[in-house]
């Protein structure tokens, strides 16, 4: 089990349910390693700032993590963690290796930020 405060995805079924129930999802698939920990930490901090996004992690070495590992968008990845951003169940962006807070927020703003503004004007 990953030692983070994020929602843990433990199976393919949980992964599917998460995508079904949430419009905007960010999943970090990794280990408790040097390149992954900074990403988890940023995600934990961003949970409050992006309430319209569901943040979750998944252990890279469990068999069910194939739902991330086998994505076409991750085919050429060779650096942990694999991070996948979903909108309405579809992959909109995937990154490999360590990412900074600025890099992550830039992706969140690009793919998920617009919806918040639209909601706010309603």
């Amino acid at each position, binding site marked *: 089990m990953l030692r983070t405060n994020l929602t843990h995805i433990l199976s393919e079924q949980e992964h599917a349910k998460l995508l079904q129930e949430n419009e905007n999802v960010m999943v970090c698939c990794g280990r408790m390693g*040097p390149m992954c920990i900074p990403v988890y930490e940023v995600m934990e901090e961003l949970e409050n700032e992006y309430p319209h996004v569901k943040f979750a992690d998944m252990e890279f070495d469990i068999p069910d993590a194939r739902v991330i590992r086998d994505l076409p968008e991750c085919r050429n990845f*060779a*650096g942990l963690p694999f991070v996948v951003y979903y909108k309405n169940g579809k992959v909109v962006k995937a990154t490999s290796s360590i990412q900074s807070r600025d890099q992550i927020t830039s992706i969140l703003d690009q793919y998920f930020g617009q919806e918040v503004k639209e909601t706010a004007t309603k």
Partner: protein
Amino acid sequence: MNHYDAIIIGAGAAGLTAGIYLSRAKVKTLILNEGTVGGQMVLTHEIANYPGIESISGYELARNMKLQAQKFGAVIKSNIKITSFDLKSNPKRFIVNGKDEYTSDVVIITTGGRSRTLGVPGENEFKGKGISYCATCDGDFFQDKEIIVVGGGNSALEEAVSLTKYASKVTIVHQFDHFQAFEHYVNEAKNNPKIDFIMESKIVEFIGDEKLRKVKIQNQRNGEVLEKDIDGVFIFIGYVPNTEMFEDVLELNQFKEIVVDKNMATNIEGVYAAGDSIAKRYRQVTTAVGEGTVAALSAAEYLNKFEKAEQVAEESVV
């Protein structure tokens, strides 16, 4: 405005140690950290020479230090951006994320360092797609594949040997004709049948499509360029200090490291520095912890003098 007795910039081994000492001494302490708590410590898979602990992961040690500092009362704000600051004012002043202001009577700088990159075409593009800076993280992606390790220090040779667990062949590319690593690391690498060497050479370009396919390696003596098919490249060429923001403020040496005295004092009164951002020879968790201790004790002594000086000033007014 939020005023603290002490502000520590950075939350690696030195910063967290200083935070533990100061907060335990009831000094109101804020740690501002631009990255992940733990710094370079978190990047270390196993720490085996920390006295009293036979073996511990860098992540665990960092986590323990963080919890210890917080338990004594230190406030830690991580993943922030210091957008402006004034170390010469009294109190010292910091603006975070362009809006939040924090002040303090004393400052300890422990901004550490970051992995040095080659800075050649293709390096950013293929990070995570063939280029890595962490053997323990990404080694298993290169099972039975051919890889290059760049560097000639302890980390490079140690990691090259460890990567032979996965790779079919490891080629060490090093810019000099000799290694800087300890002899036992050099011998271990030279005696490993899976390891080859390309000396006096540098990678000058990474080439690929959706992932890394080949590299261009230039011989430093004759300028000849060799093109080599490769699956992965691991880069271990040392660290650069995170001191850019202090360039026009603090005294730095030719390597951009902060110059300090034996008390970890910088050239500005009330500003101390410790850890990998200072000018020193040995960069270890244990040395950072020692320097963080000295910086904290010096800062506490300065605060005492500072308070006394204020009292004297108040008395003289009366």
